[in-house]
């Protein structure tokens, strides 16, 4: 096999460091890291942790854009560190924890708020008619799968929350990913839980806090298009409202 030599590059990183047990204020630390040009930002951070400063703290797991752990602000934009390629960042690379979340330490954001909201919207199958084991599996056509598949691609990386200015202004907003995932189950042919989810979604803190800025869809690494999901939830909730108030005899 031919030995491929990758070009080298000395990457300049500015990493936000914060350790609540030692220093009070978060501050930027500058590092110069020998990198291969084809590395991603996560590779550079791993080099840094392995060879320069083992106290550097950040989340990562899969290194292949599946687990959604390594979300962070890279030059001010929410990105997966494993999807941000060094070749796209010629100058100094500024790395911070995800915006709009409290910081636990260094680049680790506290995800509690998102997890609690995710729980509230019941993002799991609530079968409309329960089948026993003997009756076999729930069957679905490719067309029925297509109705929700895009919204099922969410990996809970929270980049959309870091990008959403509404979430920054109103932290109670349930937010893009949680609503998109609720919508994913609402559109599932096997599901009958929409009424339960609407109790959370059709509220002021739910979908109605969204003003359709669209930043969530721009940063989503899995092309879920949360903004589209929220617009669809708004249309459906508006139809619900008119049915509930003026035509209560019509079944939704």
């Amino acid at each position, binding site marked *: 096999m031919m030995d491929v030599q990758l070009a080298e590059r000395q990457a300049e990183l500015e990493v936000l460091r914060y350790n609540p047990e030692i220093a009070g204020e978060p501050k930027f630390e500058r590092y110069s890291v020998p990198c291969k040009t084809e590395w991603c930002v996560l590779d550079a951070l791993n080099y840094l942790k392995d060879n320069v400063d083992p106290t550097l703290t950040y989340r990562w797991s899969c290194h292949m854009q599946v687990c959604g752990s390594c979300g962070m602000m890279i030059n001010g934009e929410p990105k997966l560190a494993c999807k941000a390629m060094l070749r796209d960042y010629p100058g100094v690379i500024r790395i911070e924890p995800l915006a709009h979340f409290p910081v636990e330490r260094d680049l680790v954001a506290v995800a509690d708020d998102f997890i609690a909201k995710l729980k509230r919207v019941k993002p799991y199958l609530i079968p409309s008619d329960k089948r026993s084991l003997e009756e076999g599996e729930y069957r679905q056509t490719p067309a029925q799968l297509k109705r929700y598949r895009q919204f099922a691609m969410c990996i809970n990386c929270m980049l959309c929350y870091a990008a959403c200015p509404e979430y920054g202004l109103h932290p109670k907003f349930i937010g893009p990913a949680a609503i998109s995932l609720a919508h994913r189950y609402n559109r599932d042919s096997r599901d009958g839980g929409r009424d339960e989810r609407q109790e959370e979604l*059709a509220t002021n803190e739910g979908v*109605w806090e969204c*003003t359709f800025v669209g930043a969530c869809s721009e940063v989503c690494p899995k092309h879920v298009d949360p903004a589209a999901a929220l617009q669809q939830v708004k249309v459906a909730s508006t139809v619900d*409202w008119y049915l509930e108030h003026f035509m209560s005899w019509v079944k939704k």
Partner: protein
Amino acid sequence: MAKSNKPIIWGTFAAGGEVVSLITPVIIVLILFAAIGRPPSALGYEQLHAFAAWWFGKLVIFGIVFLSLWSQAHRLRITCFDFGLRADGLVATVFYVLAGAASLWLILILSSI
């Protein structure tokens, strides 16, 4: 938590957004033709006056103008908020009252045709 009544505002806002993006450009082009003195023959003054005098014509005109006004009032409200004018209650009242007053004025105009 109680369900929101936002659909009243958002429904007209969304419908108005559709009207503004689909119908308003056509109206602008037609007005440009009229401005240079060459309106399409089917849309001359006599024909349009007859349309506005017809009850269904009045309804269509009211629908288009009312929805456009309401959606733009809501759009301006959100724009003010985004530009840092955070007195949302006051801003909302001003724009919605303007849209409401203009709608009432439109009803007066249409009923006098």
